[in-house]
C-alpha cells in the first residue's frame, strides 16, 4: 500500500515537473507571433525604370500588401514612375507579376497591384498621430535582398527614437525625395528595406520606410502613414489623377547640406540638372528666383511645388564670388 502511494507521488511529481519544464522551455520572450503574422504580407520587389539621367536601371526593395486584392504599398525608390517588368517575391516562395497603379514622389509613395495575391494576408493601415517616442516598433523587408535570394523577410526591432521634421534632405543619394515630418527609429533599416512598412505591435502599418540617412541623424526614418493615407485612398478609389508632368516630380540632381551660412551643395549627380548647369559641390545657394534660400527643407519644399522643365535662376556663392546660374529642373516624367 505504502509503496503504491510513493509510486503515485513520484509519478505525479515527474508529471508536474515535465509540464513546468515544457512550459519554460518553449516560451522564450520575444516577438515571434508578430513576425509570423506580418511576414506573409511582405514582398520583395524588382523592376526596371528610367533613372533621372534618362538611362534605365534595375531597382529592388520591399512592399506590403494593404488589402485583400493584393494592392502593394511601396516607395518611389523601389517602383519609380514608368517602371516596368515589376515582380513581387512572396515569403511563401512564389513570384507574382505586378503593375504600377500610381506614384506620388513628393511623399515617396508608390502603389502597385500584384496579380494572383489570392488568400494571402494583408496589413491594415494604422495611425501615426498616436505614436510616441520610446514606443517599440518593427520593420520588415528585403534587407540586402534577403527575400529575393533566400525567400526570407528580414525582421527589425527597435523603438521610435524621434518624431521631427527632416533638416537635411538628401535628394538623390538613395533617391529619397520626401522632406517633412518623419518617424525616426533605431530598428534596422538597410538597403532593400525602403518601401517596406514600419509596423506597430498590433501589426498595423504606421510608416513607409525610407533610406533617408544623414550624417548627423544616421538612423532610419519612415514617412508617417497619416501623410499618405488620403493619397492611397484616392488611388484605390480611382480619384488620383497623375498627369505626365506633375508638381512634385522636379529634381535638381544634387544633395543639399545644411550649414550655418545657408544651404550648400553636397554632392552633384553626374549628368543631372545641377551638373549640366555648371554647379559644383560646395556652392552655396543664396537665393532662388530672387527669394533667399534658407536651407535644405526650403529648397525641398520649392521642388515639390515645381515641375520638371521649370527653369530656376539661382544666386550662387563660390570662392567668395556671387554669380547667377540657370538650372533647368529635371525629373521623372
Amino acid at each position, binding site marked *: 500500500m505504502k509503496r503504491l502511494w510513493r509510486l503515485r507521488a513520484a509519478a505525479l511529481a515527474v508529471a508536474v515537473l515535465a509540464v513546468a519544464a515544457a512550459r519554460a522551455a518553449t516560451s522564450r520572450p520575444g516577438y515571434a507571433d508578430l513576425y509570423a503574422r506580418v511576414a506573409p504580407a511582405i514582398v520583395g520587389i524588382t523592376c526596371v525604370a528610367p533613372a533621372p539621367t534618362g538611362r534605365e536601371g534595375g531597382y529592388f526593395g520591399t512592399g506590403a500588401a494593404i488589402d485583400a486584392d493584393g494592392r502593394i504599398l511601396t516607395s518611389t525608390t523601389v517602383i519609380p514612375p514608368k517602371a516596368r517588368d515589376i515582380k513581387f517575391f512572396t515569403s511563401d516562395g512564389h513570384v507574382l507579376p505586378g503593375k504600377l497603379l500610381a506614384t506620388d514622389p513628393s511623399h515617396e509613395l508608390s502603389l502597385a497591384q500584384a496579380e494572383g495575391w489570392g488568400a494571402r494576408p494583408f496589413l491594415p493601415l494604422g495611425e501615426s498621430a498616436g505614436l510616441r517616442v*520610446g514606443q517599440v516598433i518593427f520593420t520588415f523587408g528585403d534587407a540586402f535582398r534577403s527575400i529575393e535570394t533566400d525567400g526570407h523577410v528580414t525582421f527589425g526591432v527597435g523603438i521610435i527614437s524621434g518624431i521631427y521634421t527632416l533638416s537635411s534632405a538628401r535628394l538623390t543619394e538613395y533617391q529619397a525625395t520626401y522632406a517633412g515630418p518623419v518617424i525616426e527609429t533605431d530598428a534596422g533599416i538597410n538597403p532593400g528595406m525602403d518601401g517596406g512598412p514600419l509596423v506597430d505591435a498590433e501589426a498595423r502599418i504606421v510608416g513607409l520606410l525610407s533610406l533617408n540617412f544623414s550624417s548627423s541623424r544616421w538612423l532610419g526614418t519612415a514617412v508617417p502613414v497619416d501623410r499618405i493615407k488620403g493619397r492611397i485612398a484616392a488611388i484605390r478609389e480611382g480619384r488620383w489623377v497623375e498627369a505626365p508632368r506633375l508638381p512634385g516630380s522636379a529634381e535638381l540632381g544634387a544633395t543639399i547640406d545644411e550649414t550655418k551660412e545657408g544651404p550648400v551643395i553636397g554632392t552633384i549627380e553626374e549628368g543631372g540638372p545641377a551638373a549640366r548647369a555648371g554647379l559644383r559641390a560646395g556652392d552655396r545657394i543664396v537665393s532662388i528666383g530672387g527669394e533667399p534660400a534658407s536651407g535644405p527643407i526650403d529648397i525641398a519644399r520649392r521642388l515639390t511645388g515645381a515641375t520638371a522643365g521649370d527653369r530656376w535662376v539661382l544666386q550662387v556663392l563660390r570662392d567668395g564670388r556671387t554669380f547667377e546660374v540657370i538650372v533647368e529642373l529635371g525629373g521623372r516624367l
Partner: protein
Amino acid sequence: MKRVFYAPAIALALVLAAPAPEGRAADGGPAPAVASILSGAFRSAAERIAPCVVAIDVDRISDLPSPLREDLPKELEELKDYYERPTGPVSGVIVSEDGSILTSHYNVAGEIRSIRVTTGDGRSHEARILAKDEWDDLALLKIEATGLPVAAWADPVDLRVGRFVVAVGRSPDRARPTVNSGIVSALHRKDGRLLQTDAAFNYGNSGGALVDLDGRLMGIIAFVGHTWPDWGMNGGVGLAVRVDAIREVLPVLRRGESIPFPPMPFMGIEQDVTAIDVVGAKVLRVVPGTAAERAGIRAGDVVIAIDGEPVSDWDAMVALVWRRKPGQEIDVKVRRDKDEIPLRLTLGRRERPR
C-alpha cells in the same frame, strides 16, 4: 487512500489549468503584450529625464583638428563626411536647479564664440563654460535660471551588464527629445570611468543622458561612435561616463576648477604579439628617443619584473606601469637571451591620447 490522493491531483490540475500567461515579458507572452510593456517602460523612463535634458547650440570660431585626419586611409577620403563634426544641436543634462549643465567636453571643444541652451520648456538661455574635465570628456556649463528640474542619480551598485538603458537627447526639433534604447554592454572601460552600451546614438546625443528604467542617470553620453566620433555610424558600441566618475569630479567642476589631464606614464616599447608561451612581456621594438631606449631596453628583451614585482605578460606590465607617474624612476628587469639584466628607467610622459 483515495482522499489523500486528491491534494497532488489538485496541484496538477491547477498547473495545467493555469491560463497561458498574458502580459508577462519574461516568458513567451504575445508580442503586443511584450511590446506594450517595454514601450511603457522606455517611455516613462524618457519622460522622467526629458525635462532635465537640454539642447545645446555651439557657435564655433574654430574646431579641434579631426582626430582621424592624418590617419585617414585614401579609400576613406571620400567619406570624410563621416569624420567631420556634423551640424545641429547636441545635448546636456541639468544637474542643479540654478542652471549647472553637464555635457561632454567634445561638445564645447575648440574656440567658441557663444553657447545657447534650450531647456525643455522651449526657452533659450545664453551659457558659459564653468569648467572642463578633458580626460573624462566632461564639461560643466552655467545658465542663469531658477527652479529647473534636476536629474536624479542612479546608484552605482545598480549598474549591471544586461540592464536596460534609455538614451535621451534633443533632436533637430529642439522642443522634442529623441529616445534610444539598449542594454548595458560593459561596465569597466577606460579604467572604470566609462560604461558601454548598444543603444544607438547620434551626434546629437553627445552630452546627453543615459538612464535606467527608473529614469535615473547612469551616465553622460561621451563617445558616440565606437570610442571616437565616427559620425554616421553607430554600430551598437557607444560609451558614457559613469555616474560614479561624474559625481567624483562634479564638486570640483562646480567650483569652476577645470581638471587637468592626468599625467600618464610612457615607456616607449611595442608589444610582440606573437610571443605566447613566454613568461613576461616580450618587446618587439623600442621607439627611438624614449625612456625605454635611454634605459637600455632592446628589441627582443622580455620584461620579467617592475620594481621587484614579477610580470607575467604584457597586460600585467601595463597595469603595473599605469599606477606610476611620469618622471618616476622604476627598476625594470629584462631577460635577454639567457641573462637577467636589471635596468633603471625614468618614465616619460604620454602624449595626450586622441
